[in-house]
């Protein structure tokens, strides 16, 4: 396995781990200075409809999401657990590295009851920056687009 490959595996391990620890600043640091983060339902994606559940076409908007999460929004108290599958490296041109990875997110309420919150696919483009891999562009393609309760903490 080339260094690249190891770095990709580590990036996704880190990605899920940081979210589940709610270390959002460290999580933001996994993204490139210029980046996009969109959560899109399959319902829209398959019909070519542009609306997203979360639409951040700039790092500023992604940071606003985190600020709002901390400063303004209220949501069901829970913990997240990301289970991220084997990364699939997509050959092809284009800047950086295209990777697709299936995921499942479980949410657990304060009384210790866990439910499947979301299943879907990450469609990422990764670039190397500052000697490491960063997320240039992340599409969270959401299978579970009938959102249970609400979507506050990032997928």
């Amino acid at each position, binding site marked *: 396995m080339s260094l690249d490959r190891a770095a990709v595996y580590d990036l996704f391990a880190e990605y899920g781990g940081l979210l589940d620890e709610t270390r959002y600043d460290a999580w933001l640091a996994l993204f490139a200075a210029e980046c996009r983060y969109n*959560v899109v*339902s399959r*319902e*829209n994606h398959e*019909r070519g*409809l*542009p*609306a*997203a*559940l*979360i*639409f*951040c*076409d*700039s790092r*500023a*908007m992604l*940071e*606003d*999401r985190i*600020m*709002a999460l901390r*400063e*303004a*929004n*209220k*949501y*069901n108290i829970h913990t997240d657990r990301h289970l991220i599958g084997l990364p699939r490296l997509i050959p092809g041109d284009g800047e950086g590295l295209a990777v697709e990875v299936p995921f499942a997110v479980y949410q657990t309420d304060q009384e210790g009851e866990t439910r499947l919150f979301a299943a879907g696919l990450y469609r990422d483009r990764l670039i190397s920056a500052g000697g490491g891999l960063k997320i240039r562009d992340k599409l969270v393609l959401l299978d579970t*687009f*009938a*959102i*249970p*309760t*609400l*979507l*506050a903490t990032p997928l």
Partner: protein
Amino acid sequence: MVTAAIWPMLDYSRVPYRLYHDAEIYAREQQRIFQGPTWSFLGLDAEIPLPGDFRATWVGDTPVVVNRDATGAVHAFVNRCAHRGALVRRELSGNAKEHICIYHQWCYGLDGGLSAIPFRRGIRGQGGLDAGFDMRAHGLRRLRVDAVCGAVFGTLAADAEPLEDYLGPPIMAQLRRLFDRPVRVLGYNRQRIRANWKLYAENTRDNYHASLLHEFLVTFGLDRSTQVGGVRMDGRHRHNITWAEANSDTAEFAREAYAGARVRNDYLSLKEPAMVAFHPEHGDKLNLAVTSVFPSSVFVQISNSLAIRQIRPRGVDEFEVFQTMIGYDDDSPEMTLHRLRQANLVGPAGFVSMEDGEALEIAHRASRPEPDRATIIELGGGGAISDRDYRVNDVPLRGFWSYYAELLGIEPAGAVR
């Protein structure tokens, strides 16, 4: 069996929690309200532009298909096969010349009529249906359909009043305002909330909660109860428009008012303020217009984010909010991008809407054990139900319940409406 005796007050200012948790009441609502003389939003002309285009939707918890026939006419019918009850059209959307049930391939036209039955006469003259079988008597159950500026409504009740009468002048005006140009669908979103559907019907009529629950509104200066605004209802008070005008208050005044109300009032600003910018587009100052049509349709303008919501009950303890995000055909690319960014405000992940999912679930859960206790609906006072030109009120909730009681046949004698 629920009766008119359930109401503690004649002005509907108290609602016993039993009404949110009783499965028998839920079943009655389906029969008398959703399948009763009410009109439900079914979809947009823009979603089925071509002959054969269809979409599946719901009226209460009854599955319905709406489609356009070869002549361009729109039809809607219950998506249940007349033969043995299977869902006839399984896809959510598409284009077809007819609808064929998979179970025995009975075939229906785009008007819902039964058009073909395999082996109707059997084989070699053996089997099949009796010659007397009347295919015309066994089509799909049709809905009466009507539209307002491309917004298609339907009703299952033959005796429902005409749509325009049902909506009444203020609602008609709002719909004409929202649909003043051809619309374009930007996408859909869905939220499954483990609570009774009526908690959401109340929520969309609840002016009082907005800036208190959805702190983002105040924190980022989007919307405040100190703005000029209010509620306007139809003659029967079953529908409601919650409205507010942009920049109709000052930050200072708002700060004082919220401070007086002991509510957080420090303001923050976004790194991407463009996201919350408001570009007037209907020739008025309204930056908030939430139009609730009894029982379960909501037309929403929040700044430049435009949407239609259907409340889809899924049993007494759960409902789905199905939201259709729209823009206009003549939107510039920049305006479309603005709407896509501003879509962050609404929906299950919306900065100013996500909280409803939590608030309604905790209200549903906490109220279940005490069915005989009741809510308090008295903001803006009790007594007669009427429009208000101020925002701190929840009067339209009482309007909702007054018509609910009438349809369910539990209106108390001497009810104040």
